[in-house]
């Protein structure tokens, strides 16, 4: 098993697309959590979104909530793409057969891929935290404010919640890749769900129909949004809204993670490899 994990790590650490995803996540995170609000604050573009956040929210004490604010939307989307790539590329390049004639146990290879995804999303979350922390120090220094860090409990809870939510999206990516045996369609459909359908449901359907509002509370997106909201992400961020209690949100996300992963493994195990 360990040698399979190492093989997967070697594959994905060398893959330029993965570093591109990480770079985009870090860049978007700095741009929307720091650059634009800061520009708005200093009056350069006075009607920039989020400008009312104020300087306080950009200081180191608040960096965790800024780092995880993007999880329900673009970070989740990028994690989903990562999950699709980890599994779907083996279909796209027809490398499943190359791997599975070396080791016929699909369960082991799938297990190695799950560990790879867990590691990848952890690196993603840690990168976002590092980037946000750095940006907040820059803001504090430029504005000559004192540097106060959040407590370790806040930091751990924020990192853990963001990790759980992004891994859940990545596991949906893996499941879609296995179900559709490709890369492009799973990425497309995953993003349509994550970025379009989910927002239509919460913005248009839920206010009109009670049952949609109730059903929403069981969907992965609103639960991810609730979890990061409870961990400090500002509710003016898209997708962030405290619809359900944090414990419930964490449990629902965990249940989706387990269900997506198990379903993917089951499909992979029983289908033919072509």
């Amino acid at each position, binding site marked *: 098993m360990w040698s399979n994990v190492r093989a997967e790590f*070697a594959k994905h650490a060398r893959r*330029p697309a993965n570093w591109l995803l990480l770079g985009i996540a870090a860049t978007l995170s700095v741009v929307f959590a720091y650059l634009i609000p800061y520009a708005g604050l200093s009056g350069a573009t006075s009607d920039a979104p989020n400008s009312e956040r104020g300087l306080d929210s950009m200081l180191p004490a608040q960096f965790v909530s800024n780092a995880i604010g993007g999880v329900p939307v673009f970070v989740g989307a990028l994690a989903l793409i990562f999950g699709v790539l980890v599994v779907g590329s083996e279909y796209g390049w027809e490398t499943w057969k*190359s791997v*599975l*004639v*070396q080791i*016929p146990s699909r369960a082991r290879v799938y297990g190695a891929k799950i560990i790879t995804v867990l590691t990848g999303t952890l690196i993603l979350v840690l990168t976002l935290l590092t980037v946000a922390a750095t940006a907040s120090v820059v803001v504090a220094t430029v504005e000559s404010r004192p540097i106060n860090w959040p407590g370790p409990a806040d930091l751990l809870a924020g990192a853990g919640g963001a990790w759980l939510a992004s891994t859940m999206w990545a596991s949906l990516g893996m499941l879609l890749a296995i179900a559709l045996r490709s890369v492009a369609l799973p990425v497309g459909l995953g993003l349509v769900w994550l970025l379009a359908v989910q927002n239509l449901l919460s913005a248009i359907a839920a206010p009109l129909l009670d049952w949609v509002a109730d059903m929403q509370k069981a969907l992965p997106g609103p639960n991810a949004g609730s979890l990061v909201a409870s961990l400090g992400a500002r509710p003016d961020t898209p997708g962030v809204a405290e619809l359900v209690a944090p414990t419930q949100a964490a449990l629902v996300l965990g249940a989706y993670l387990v269900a997506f992963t198990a379903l993917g493994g089951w499909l992979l195990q029983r289908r*033919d*490899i*072509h």
Partner: protein
Amino acid sequence: MSDPVETTALTKRYGEILAVDQLRLHVRDGEVYGFLGPNGAGKTTTLRMLLGLVRPTSGGVRLFGRPPGPGYLASVGALIEGPSFYPYLSGRQNLRVLAGHAGVDRSRVPGVLDTVDLTDRADDRYGTYSLGMKQRLGLAAALLKKPGLLILDEPTNGLDPAGMADMRRTIRKLAAEGCTILLSSHLLAEVQQVCDRVGVIAQGRLVAERTVGEFGTASLRVAADPLAEARDVAGRLVGAERVRTEGEVLELDVEPDQASRINTELVRAGIDVSELHWHEPDLEKTFLELTGAQSHVE
């Protein structure tokens, strides 16, 4: 010891299509077995079932006596339906990744690269390889486990004549080292050059299984007048059992270098020799007959 490959009534159905039909395949230890059939005959499907990539609809598979399960492919190397690797990794990195999956030491990698003559280009990205180089990397990957059984699906696909000759040489060398080889092809002539036995598959069924020699050997054909006298003379020269009358000509089972001596002797005996030529059996015709006529072999 159990045979390297053994299948019983192996069957695969894709909806309406019966890709493999009650196939009984037996490959003995140490032999090079040619699995021959036209496009769509079911070769790749059969090999995929042997390797556990495709599940049989019914019937069973055993490699070295083992049914699919843990350790199933421990000493089996395979190249199925063309090579496939990660395009952004170099040839060497690809082999290291696969060695990791196989659980073999990466110190095997330089050796197999050398065997397929790819050391020079091993550090270039796989995506930049030519078709022939990709195919050779595929063979290298199949050799990582020092396999006792090598399963190769159309291994000379995409190779130029020199590359094909290299591939045959490598196959013979591996066979000489004791590796059992099962290779598929749709070219009878190609299979004849490297295989000990040949199984012919058509529409998912094994329609013939023969040693290579049984597909017919080359002979010397002589058109002479009078034919009966020529037959006597030739019989005295090479042995009567090696001489047959085929219509208007004599057919002699002899080595090519005897042709001129036979000619001289016939002329000396006053026989009029109008034609004397070396005749290769029409393998393709045999093949087409076998795969066209759906006679079923027991």
